[in-house]
């Protein structure tokens, strides 16, 4: 129990720090590494709350595919990266705004009673049954999201024959 709480805090701090670091470091390639670490830490949470399937998915899709995609993007646009990124400043206003939102949300969260801390896991088969039956429509929609993304992205990026 203590261990779990401890793990929660460690993971939470890791997640926050890696996320921040990913946004703050100047070298874009380092950013990708921090992002990967962030995704992994989130996967850790999923394992922590007994959702191993999601943890695996997170590792696969995010820490794997998305990270590679981002890295690819960095590589392709690389030559101009360093010069411009250095110019980014940290105004007080964005920080304040973000903090305001965090504070509101966090105080709201703190009003939730923690008397029950029980988490319940689902078996992969239960999850997949639900996913493909009860919530199958979502997956169909996800497919329909991917269709234009695929067609359009290819069209956009392709060096046309025109």
């Amino acid at each position, binding site marked *: 129990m203590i261990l779990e709480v401890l793990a929660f805090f460690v993971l939470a701090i890791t997640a926050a720090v890696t996320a921040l670091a990913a946004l703050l470091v100047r070298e874009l390639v380092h950013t990708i590494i921090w992002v990967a670490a962030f995704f992994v830490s989130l996967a850790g949470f999923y394992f922590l709350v007994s959702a191993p399937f999601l943890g695996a998915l997170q590792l696969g899709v995010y820490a794997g595919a998305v990270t590679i995609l981002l890295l690819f993007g960095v590589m392709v646009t690389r030559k101009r990266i360093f010069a411009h990124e250095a110019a980014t400043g940290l105004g007080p*206003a*964005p920080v304040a*705004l*973000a903090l*305001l*939102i965090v504070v*509101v*949300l966090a*105080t*709201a969260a703190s009003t939730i009673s923690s008397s029950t801390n029980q988490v319940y896991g689902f078996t992969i088969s239960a999850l997949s049954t639900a996913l493909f039956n009860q919530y199958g429509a979502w997956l169909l929609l996800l497919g329909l999201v991917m269709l234009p993304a695929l067609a359009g992205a290819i069209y956009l990026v392709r060096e046309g024959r025109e």
Partner: protein
Amino acid sequence: MSGPLNALFPWAFLVPLAPAIAFVIVGLFGRRMRRLEWGGWVAVGGAFVAMVLGVLIAVGEMLSPGTYTDRSFNWFTLPGNGTGTFPNGFSLVMGTLVDPLSAIMLIVVTVVGFLVMLYSVDYMHRDTGLPRYYAELSLFLASMLGLVLADNLLQFFLFWELVGVCSYFLIGFYYQRPAAASAAKEAFLVTRVGDVLFLGGIYIYFQQFATAGPGLGWAAAGFPFVFHGAPFLTLLHPPNPTLFTLAGLLILGGAAGKSAQFPLDVWLPDAMEGPTTVSALIHAATMVAAGVYLLAVTSVFIGFSATDSFAIVAIGGFTTFWAASMAMVNRDIKRVIAYSTVSQLGYMVLAIGAGFTMVGLYHLFTHAFFKALLFLAAGAVIHAVDTQDLFKMGGLRKTLRITSIGFLIGGLSLAGIPPLAGFFSKDDVLSSVYTAAQTHPMYWPFFVLAFATVFMTAYYIFRVWFLTFSGDRPRDPTLPPAHEAPWTMTVPILILSGLAILAGALVFVPQIGGLFTAGVGFPATPGVPPTYTTTDILLSVVSVGLGAGGILTAYVLWGNGRVFSLAEDSAAQPIRRLLLERYYVKTAVDWFGLRVVYAVSRFLDFVDEYIIDGTVHGFERLFSELSIRLRRLQSGVVLDYAAYVVVGLAVFLVFLYVIVPAIPALGGG
């Protein structure tokens, strides 16, 4: 109450209609006629028909005095609905009214009108725009006759305005002369002030009579009782004395405007810019007398109020003196006569104010003839020598024999020398004031002024006569050689001379005198005897003496071609200047019009354009400015757009989480 000519009374509406038809014919076709004078003959014809019919009707009235009304033209009807001020609704009915008063006026207007029209044919033949002239003159005649025969105050007012506008056009007949256009404008505006007051008076009567009693619904009665209040006076119990006094003052204002009484007298001398015929007809004999006529017909009510009576006396008495004083120094032949007209009108008003309505009318009657005579004679002079400046004339007695005699008769009549017409009527005026002053001591000063004016009158009119006719030859050698006028001009002069001699004595014919005494039958204010009193001998002698003295003085100063000039350093010099400058009233009026009224309106215009409209523009600018400022937010940087999203989010979160729970009305708490 029925005489041989009474059958004509229902046809009285033809009297104004005849010149009205002439107006339409000349107005529409005048310019197409092969010879422009033909229009003149049409107008003369119209006037002639009017005269014949008018005189016949007047004679009919003489033979059987009484009140005949014919109210068959429904001008305006509002049915009543049982509530409000006019529970039975009201009708504004137009009609004709024949009674002693209007009979007198009919004679004056038709006779003078016809003669002037006839006179015009040759007098005006050199002018351009003749169709316009005859059309306007015919319209004037029609309107004036409509006014005379008016059955109620509204109709009276309607024609009153029409004669005003005709006067406006005729004064401005030579519209290309700025002075004429300006004089016309001045005449219209000054009389307009009076008209507006008059209208106010009408409103008061209208409402007061409507509320006076149940039997007085407008639908049933129209309002002849304003005119012929006798049957209604018993019902009256003057409903509201204050209002009645006010109404009287307002009516007086209207009369003062039309009859050029102080302080609205400034326009009449300037109105001499019009053709002399117009001056003779409109600005001497008829239209200016309409004010007096108005006071006469409403004297029944005005007489109720001592305040009103005093105001009328004061204005009339003062005006006689005021105008005569200016007449004494003027060099313009027509203007002198114009001042004289103002002064004489003052006499009439004075008599009416004193309570002797018919005395005023009597003077109106005689004055119309001798003043028209003076104007026509002056017109003949002007026609002959083409100038109006007295100091340039002289010696015209020889060439303009008939004219000079006519003028002399007119002058003697005006000066009140017996047995000419002016003597009788003026004497009556003076004695009526004298009588009234016995019971109203505050009339005395005005009696004195009026009396003094007799001397001044005789002086100024003979000054004119001597300057014009006596002596050997014109003082200005450049004047064209004069010659006597053609018959169309001399005949009217001769006829009017006859009338100027006889008109006064005519009242001693019982039938004619009956008109004047019948008219006096109105019950008037308690305390002012309503009867016509015979002349006090002493008073007559003194006034004739004053008149003769005036003539003598004029002879001494101006007789036989002499020209009297006041020494440069004379103590009287400032007075002369003051009189020449017309007491600076004209200057003040111009100053008021141009400097005050126009300046105020320019200021209002400025406020309108820059402050009121400026505010409107301010809104436009406000939004434009706002738009330009807000547009800067659309910076093109997508991060800014994201920031707006986040700001919006933050605002919502704060609202929903912090503000909503704090306000019970929003469902929180």
